[in-house]
């Protein structure tokens, strides 16, 4: 039986579906089509699907790892496996990774806002508004974060209906000939679609807050399934709406395809999409912020409130920095590499470590008896 936080702080297991799904679907949903097409072209959606399927394995590994953690999360596991000193160092590295995640979401979104809506708005203003909002949500505790996550999975899902408009222009021949690319091309696309699934590792932190968490694996897999089904819907709509040459010229294909939507009472629907992404990025950012606070709290003697404010101030300083396109590329690459290493390198490694330490314990127990 794995460790669980006190009952009043936990949330029902089915909410793991929403938590996991929403912590993955953030800002990357806006431009992943642009990023993956240089590889497998019109077949790139297969790479998205395959990467999504591989996340099921990652979830399995995470569940295996956490089952053996004394307090059910990675923070305690690090200390348990590697000792206090090295464990804290690894926790620090994880904290840095989380900071990168939230900063990436905020920087990218402020770029969207600055390019498409308010060209004169400074990044620090956007960052300030968002961070104050996040602080208010995170101060409410994990249950409020989960509530926000739940609502913000449901509300933006209504927008999927509007994809009918671009589908009226769909050119289904864009997907033919099927499987016309080489393996390296597919691999390239797959590597570019890793950022789409980053966020699943947050499970390492909030796992103790899920009620009956040992039995909740079902919901986690449903969450992953939901994620790549959503990505497939969006990717297929985009590839049917745009041809490959055009996608190369669209930085945010999801937003530009929403421009075709118009109603008699509303001529430009793309603003709805842009502002809808406030709802899309809020839950992952809040979960990450909450995770940062958890790490700081358990590694240092800081209170929840001070550690939250410390994290927020650090994030603010990073996000308020004026970025240009070149730096954005560097940031994106950093995030992608870090996420790939974590998901496909570190988590399997951790699983191996847990396995070895388990064997050692059993061996020792046997010897003792």
């Amino acid at each position, binding site marked *: 039986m794995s460790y669980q936080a006190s009952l009043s702080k936990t949330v029902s297991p089915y909410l793991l579906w929403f938590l996991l799904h929403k912590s993955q679907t953030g800002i990357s949903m806006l431009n992943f089509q642009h990023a993956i097409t240089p590889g497998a072209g019109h077949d790139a959606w297969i790479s998205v699907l395959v990467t999504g399927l591989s996340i099921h394995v990652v979830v399995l590994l995470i569940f295996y790892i956490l089952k053996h953690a004394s307090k059910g999360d990675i923070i305690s596991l690090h200390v348990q496996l590697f000792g206090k000193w090295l464990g804290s160092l690894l926790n620090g590295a994880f904290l840095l990774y989380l900071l990168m995640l939230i900063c990436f979401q905020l920087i990218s979104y402020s770029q969207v806002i600055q390019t498409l*809506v308010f060209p004169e708005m400074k990044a620090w203003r956007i960052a300030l508004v968002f961070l104050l909002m996040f602080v208010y949500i995170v101060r409410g505790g994990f249950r*409020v974060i989960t509530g926000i996550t739940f609502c913000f999975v449901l509300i933006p899902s209504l927008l999927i209906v509007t994809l009918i408009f671009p589908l009226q222009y769909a050119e289904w021949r864009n997907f033919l000939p099927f499987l016309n690319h080489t393996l390296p091309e597919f691999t390239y696309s797959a590597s570019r679609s890793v950022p789409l699934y980053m966020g699943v590792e947050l499970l390492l932190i909030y796992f103790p807050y899920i009620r009956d968490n040992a039995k909740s694996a079902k919901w986690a897999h449903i969450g992953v399934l939901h994620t790549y089904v959503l990505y497939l819907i969006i990717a297929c709509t985009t590839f049917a709406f745009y041809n490959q040459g055009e996608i190369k010229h669209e930085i945010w294909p999801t937003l530009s395809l929403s421009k075709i939507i118009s109603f008699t009472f509303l001529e430009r629907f793309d603003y709805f999409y842009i*502002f809808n992404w406030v709802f899309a990025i809020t839950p992952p950012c809040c979960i990450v912020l909450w995770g940062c606070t958890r790490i700081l709290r358990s590694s240092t003697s800081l209170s929840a409130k001070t550690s939250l404010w410390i994290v927020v101030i650090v994030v603010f300083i990073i996000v308020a920095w004026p970025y240009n396109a070149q730096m954005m590329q560097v940031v994106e690459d950093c995030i992608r590499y870090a996420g790939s290493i974590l998901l496909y390198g570190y988590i399997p490694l951790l699983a191996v470590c847990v396995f070895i330490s388990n064997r050692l314990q059993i061996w020792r127990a046997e010897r003792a008896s």
Partner: protein
Amino acid sequence: MKPSEQFDIHSLEQLFSIVSKSNDFSRISLEIGQTSLTVSFYPSMSDTGEIHDHLLPCLHKIDEEIQRLEELKKWLPFDEITCETVPNQIANKLQQGYVVLQLQEARNEALLINISHETMGHRTSNDTENEFSVIGPKTGFVENLSINLHLLRQQIAIPQLIFEELTIGSLSKTTIVVAYIEGLTNPEIVQTMKNRLKGVDMDIVYDSSFLEQVISDNTNTPFPLFLTTERIDRIAYVISSGQIALFTSGSPYVLAGPSTFMDFFISPEDYYLNWITGSFFRVIRLMSVFFSLFASPIYIAVLTFHYEMIPSRLLQPIMMSGLHVPFSPVIEVVFLETTIELLREAGARLPAKIGQTLGIVGGIVIGEASVQASLTSNILLIIVALSALASFTTPIFKMANTIRVLRFPLILFSALLGGLGIAIGFTLLLAHLLRLKSLDTPYMVPFFPFRKGNLSDSLIRASYQFTTNRILYLNPLRTKRYQPDTKKEDIEHDD
């Protein structure tokens, strides 16, 4: 924190020396055989006719020696007679209109006779004035507690309906009654409520709404956390579904809790109409909440920042109507919204007849004139008037007020950040709602935490066949309300 100082009475001498300073206090001494008897009462509180017609003649008729107060009881034709020695208790009863009898021999003892004139000064009509409904009972609660309890017991006629009394208020000594159904209401909730009430220290409980603010879980919120109603059917429904009602003496409004956000948008009329019309009206009501909250912020955001969203055909009327308005849309909206609030506030304060006239005259004249003077565009006038109207569809007045107040921060957000501001305002609003709790029960159920069992009676009012569950998140001891499949064998089904 230190509790406030109590007005305690330590002895009967002290009591009578205080009360005799008051001119509405009256004291009569009678000689009965050897001893003398004093009768003290407040003519303002007691039924003086009763005293002169029954009590005093009876006392005069006594022809045996009275040693103890107990012996008097059999001479007196009143049903509520008690013997009391605690000075504080005697003082309380005296204030409620009891007549205090004392024998010369036993100065520390008093016989209390209930001749209080309870209904004096109370209104006789008990129509529901503020929560009107076309269908359904029209009687509502009144200021008198015992009438209110009587009205409720008429609706719920089982002995398990419990009324527990408490007294709150160092000056007012108001009686508070906690009503629930034993064996149905979750005892934990009852205990939480009683604990909250025991902690209350106030001087005067003016109204139950005032009490609500003191016992609510979060005082820094514009949202009402307890349902306040004057309708009997509503309270009967609330108690039958496992919530608690809180009666306050002297207040026609009864509190009910734990409440959820949705409770405030439910009208009893939804249940009196069939489920299709009932659901339709409920959906209209919920949509009007959104309209009322977001109409003017969206107007500002679109006209100030995102004019591309306006369809070309709509551009013409918007441009023509706002062409000569010298203000930015924000100022226009704030000006109009404030005007509407002014009219509403003036209408509520003025005597009913003048208020109505002023509302109509003011609304039409001011609206028309401000469009004529190009201070506002008439499209905005339509939007603001509609959103004011929409906010009045909320059945519970307190929630309607909340919605009107919340419009202003949203207007501010949209004026500063356009659509982004509206999205952020909405998120903050949602986060705030998710943080709220009413008697330790989440405010946003059944949406979050999601409860499927109660969804049939939330956004819509499903057919009575599907609303068989009590409010499940309150963990009532009996969950099923009724069995819906009554056999209607006389109905022939065509195959």
